[in-house]
């Protein structure tokens, strides 16, 4: 077993664990291939069962022979272990370091995890593209499923099955793929049943400096327009950045070649800028000594909420084009795997009531993030405490979840899920026992045989017992398009994520419970009234029958 080589000291006694809002616990620390376990010897229950892959960074320090390891987690939590013995401490630290940064995906926990629950519904088959397509196909015959990418040959980051205009054949799709970044030809992202307008997404067009064009590409996206109608192209880069991209072979749609389309640039930041923003924000939240001015200036300097506002604004704009202007939209940035997906998925949250239900939201994540090829493995490799600056790490998905939370906060009754659902998804995207967020695209997941070798997150989440934790008691289906406010006054810090480990939520939790109780009680009373009413009605008819001869 390879893990054994990495674990020099599997067990240390008299370790003291410090966590926010819990009293310190003394116990025995055990290291396994995937977990760090601490149990106090008194009652033999584990006080801590911590996944190595959730570790973002560790610090160690010594006072005499007493070592201290500070573990900083990807979910922003910080725990401290006091370990007697310098050697033990060094061994534990180096083991944790090695085990939390395993190179091979197949060594990760999901490949070893054996579920303790009975799988009722296999999450790997919960949201198949064919089923999703059926939801549209009753309303339109203008679209078809294409299997052109069956072997991942046309576009390595696309799933095997995509939805494209019916009038465009696979041959044309192959040509278009050569004209779009990463082979990401325009595909259907969302069909607005109300007026038949669509959101499509793609990679940037590879126009280069000499203004290359592709007739098939023009034909493809024009095929989505109704006669005499115009569409909008939302480029998630600034005009400047888009222009610069031409030097590297990329570019944007020229007006001359796409006369029926109006291009709008809505700049959304990417990569290290977002990662740095997260690092700064978490740092600001963790420092409890900041005075008011310093806190506010740090919060501002992190730019996190600026990113939130930018992303939401672009999503509102896309939704607006669809619902208010009755125009179809094509969305892309450079690769079409990050900001593009933030915009397409949030626009759906705004427009589509289904995406605000639990299953609908799961389907949205499956469609617009996992199958659409958001590189989770790269983006979520490190979190707020990382000090190695890799270009590909970025909290793109967390920003999306934060934006969803902002809309949820403004429309607290329109979502079937609650804040805990979003927090859970954040946790699992960064470290999980399930295989759902492993790999960077469907092609990689296929090679890893995740479906056969790991458990899907949805298999676990969609059990009734688990679902109840994530269900919003206030939910009342709302079929309207929901327009959020994007004013800074309306976009607060997501305390449930960023202050989660920095302050006690006891009173807030109690209040939430009380709210749930009131709602539950209401349901109970309603049910009881109905039963009594029926009972009375029955008695009356009985009496009536007895009375009439």
């Amino acid at each position, binding site marked *: 077993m390879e893990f054994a080589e990495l674990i020099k000291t599997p067990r240390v006694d008299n370790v003291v664990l410090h966590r926010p809002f819990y009293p310190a616990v003394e116990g025995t620390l055990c290291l396994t291939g995937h977990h760090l376990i601490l149990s106090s010897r008194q009652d033999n229950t584990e006080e801590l069962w911590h996944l190595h892959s959730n570790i973002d960074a560790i610090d160690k320090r010594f006072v005499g022979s007493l070592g201290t390891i500070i573990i900083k987690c990807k979910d922003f939590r910080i725990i401290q272990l006091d370990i007697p013995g310098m050697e033990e401490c060094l061994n534990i630290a180096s083991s944790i370091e090695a085990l939390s940064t395993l190179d091979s995906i197949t060594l990760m926990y999901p490949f070893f995890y054996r579920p303790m629950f009975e799988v009722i519904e296999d999450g790997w088959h919960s949201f198949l593209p064919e089923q999703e397509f059926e939801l549209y196909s009753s309303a339109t015959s203008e679209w078809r499923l294409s299997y052109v990418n069956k072997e991942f040959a046309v576009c390595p980051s696309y799933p095997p099955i995509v939805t494209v205009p019916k009038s465009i054949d696979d041959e044309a799709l192959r040509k278009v793929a050569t004209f779009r970044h990463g082979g990401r030809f325009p595909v259907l992202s969302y069909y607005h049943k109300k007026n038949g307008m669509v959101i499509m997404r793609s990679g940037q067009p590879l126009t280069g400096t000499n203004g290359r064009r592709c007739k098939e590409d023009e034909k493809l996206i024009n095929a989505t327009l109704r006669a005499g109608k115009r569409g909008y192209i939302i480029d998630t880069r600034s005009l400047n950045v888009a222009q610069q991209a031409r030097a590297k072979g990329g570019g944007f749609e020229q007006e001359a070649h796409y006369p029926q389309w109006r291009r709008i640039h809505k700049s959304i930041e990417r990569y290290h800028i977002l990662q740095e923003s997260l690092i700064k924000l978490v740092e600001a939240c963790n420092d409890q000594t900041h005075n*008011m001015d310093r806190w506010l200036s740090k919060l501002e300097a992190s730019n996190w909420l*600026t990113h939130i506002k930018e992303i939401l604004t672009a999503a509102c704009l896309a939704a607006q084009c669809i619902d208010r202007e009755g125009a179809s939209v094509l969305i892309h940035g450079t690769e079409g795997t990050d900001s593009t997906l933030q915009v397409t998925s949030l626009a759906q949250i705004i427009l589509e009531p289904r995406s605000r239900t639990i299953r609908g939201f799961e389907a949205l994540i499956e469609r617009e993030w996992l199958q659409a090829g958001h590189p989770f493995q790269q983006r979520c490799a490190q979190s707020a405490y990382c000090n190695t600056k890799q270009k590909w790490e970025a909290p793109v998905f967390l920003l999306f979840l934060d934006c969803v939370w902002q809309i949820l906060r403004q429309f607290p009754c329109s979502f079937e899920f609650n804040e805990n659902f979003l927090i859970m998804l954040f946790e699992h995207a960064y470290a999980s026992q399930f295989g759902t967020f492993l790999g960077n695209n469907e092609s990689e997941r296929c090679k890893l045989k995740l479906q056969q070798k790991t458990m899907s997150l949805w298999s676990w989440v969609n059990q009734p017992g688990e679902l109840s934790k994530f269900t919003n008691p206030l939910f009342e289906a709302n079929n309207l398009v929901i327009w959020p406010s994007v004013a800074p*006054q309306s976009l607060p810090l997501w305390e449930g994520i960023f202050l989660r480990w920095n302050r006690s939520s006891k009173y807030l939790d109690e209040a939430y419970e009380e*709210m749930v109780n009131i709602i539950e009680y209401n349901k109970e009373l309603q049910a009881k009234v109905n039963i009594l009413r029926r009972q009375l009605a029955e008695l009356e008819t009985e009496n009536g029958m007895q009375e009439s001869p």
Partner: protein
Amino acid sequence: MQPSDDVSPTPEPQASWTPLLRARRAALKWAQKSVPGVRGVAGCGPSAQKWPGPRDFLACGQVHKRRPRILMREGGTWGRARAAAPEARYRAVGRADTPRAAGTVKWEVEQVKLLDRFSTSNKSLTGTLYLTATHLLFIDSHQKETWILHHHIASVEKLALTTSGCPLVIQCKNFRTVHFIVPRERDCHDIYNSLLQLSKQAKYEDLYAFSYNPKQNDSERLQGWQLIDLAEEYKRMGVPNSHWQLSDANRDYKICETYPRELYVPRIASKPIIVGSSKFRSKGRFPVLSYYHQDKELNAMANRAAGKGYENEDNYSNIRFQFVGIENIHVMRSSLQKLLEVNGTKGLSVNDFYSGLESSGWLRHIKAVMDAAIFLAKAITVENASVLVHCSDGWDRTSQVCSLGSLLLDSYYRTIKGFMVLIEKDWISFGHKFSERCGHLDGDPKEVSPVFTQFLECVWHLTEQFPQAFEFSEAFLLQIHEHIHSCQFGNFLGNCQKEREELKLKEKTYSLWPFLLEDQKKYLNPLYSSKSHRFTVLEPNTISFNFKFWRNMYHQFDRTLHPRQSVFNIIMNMNEQNEQLEKDIKDLESKIKQRKNKQTDGILTKELLHSVHPESPTLKTSLCFKEQTLLPVNDALRTIEGSSLADNRYSEYAEEFSKSEPAVVSLEYGVARMTC
């Protein structure tokens, strides 16, 4: 001088900017001469029964703030009103050439545009602007009304003429900002001048409270004033007792003009000691009891006093000194001003919002007040120490800290009634200068300061951290804030008890509290748990990240910035529904029992069959429940200020977007919006 003149419902606008002092002297003189009980409310109140038309109703100044909609209906529709006077596109009645007849709208200007405060596309509503003796009223083409009380107006600004008309920007003390465009400059100028005069009264007697008539008789009014009884409150605290006694030293306001008559002092404090102490303290504000904490075997006390400078430590041997840096009223005033400038900016960016929030210092001040109150509460509970709180005069920062400290210590003050008592005790009776701080009269602008607003904001922050500890909700705080400025009730008029007595407020005006108490359903916190927090001392967390911008206060009228669905209202409704359901269940159960009994007795009556409706009212409630929850706070007292019940966001959007092919698509501040 006839008292009836002074309380005339349509006071002649005072052109001169009478200094406050003169106003007060005049008020005192008038009060001495006036005969109690003789008050003219000519042509108002009772005449409401025979509505000649809405215009009359408006002008009589008896706008019944609490039920405007019902009164409107009695008076007929506005459309009819206009038909009755078709020539009145623009009228100026009630001017010098016209008799000051009650029963007229002073101004009426049609085709006025109301701009959306944050819209960059100059989106507007067109309607008619009416000026009455007490309110400025705008009715848009959807019959949505925006009422602005003259006393709420903090500033009126006439901007440079534009092609569409003359812009008029009105900023209110309740943080409403309205931006009108008046087609003709002359009209705009007239409105501007009238508002300047009407919003700045020189005499107390010209304030709304002296003409406001909620149709109660004298005994009802007096009862209202007796609702909050401070003697009762001191008894509740446990004084007088072996340490503390009631002192009659200030019975005639001789020792301290700004203290109430009845004061509690230590038993050992003889009159000479009190007199000596008062000479040593600023404005004679010697240390008196503010709150007596009954706890364990040791009794700890918080008291208040004033002093310029501070005590020489050598002379106070067993006393520890703690300086908490709460800034003075001038700093607070400019801080709020900066805050309002920032949050009123169109197209505000996140960075500008936070840097503005930081540079305004507002949250820093809120935190400082909170920290001081926590220090006080801890000293009393943890160290079992008594605390003397003072600032320079002892009616601003001292009031903030004492009242907030009491709120942390004593769960009684976290109830609706208790909170009223707290305000009466620590703010009103101990001489917080409400009239000066709120600028009720045309006085020294340097005396205006949001000291009480800060207190309310601190309480709001507590309600955010302890969602179950308060019997009241945010709506209660907002309503109180509304009325410290409205001058509609007598409670907050004047600057100290002595002045209030001289103004004979209890005879001539009404107390706010019974009205709030009567409506308390609207202000209840549905999650309040009286048991769990009953005896606990609140220990709020004051790490900076706990302090947030109070959007519902500073943007209370900017509905587009708010959550579209209110959890609070839903839970509130559900609580009410639950009560109804419980009743229904009892009803049904007794009916079933009755049925069964009758069945066994073999006695059947047809009557009973008819007594039960197939569709009970509860069923109906549950059906329309969802609809109700989407509406904004159903708050009649506030409705008059503009948030109409028909204010359904979705239709608002629909209207906004039903526009033809756009040339440019842009996203605006606040809400996603398309421009042409």
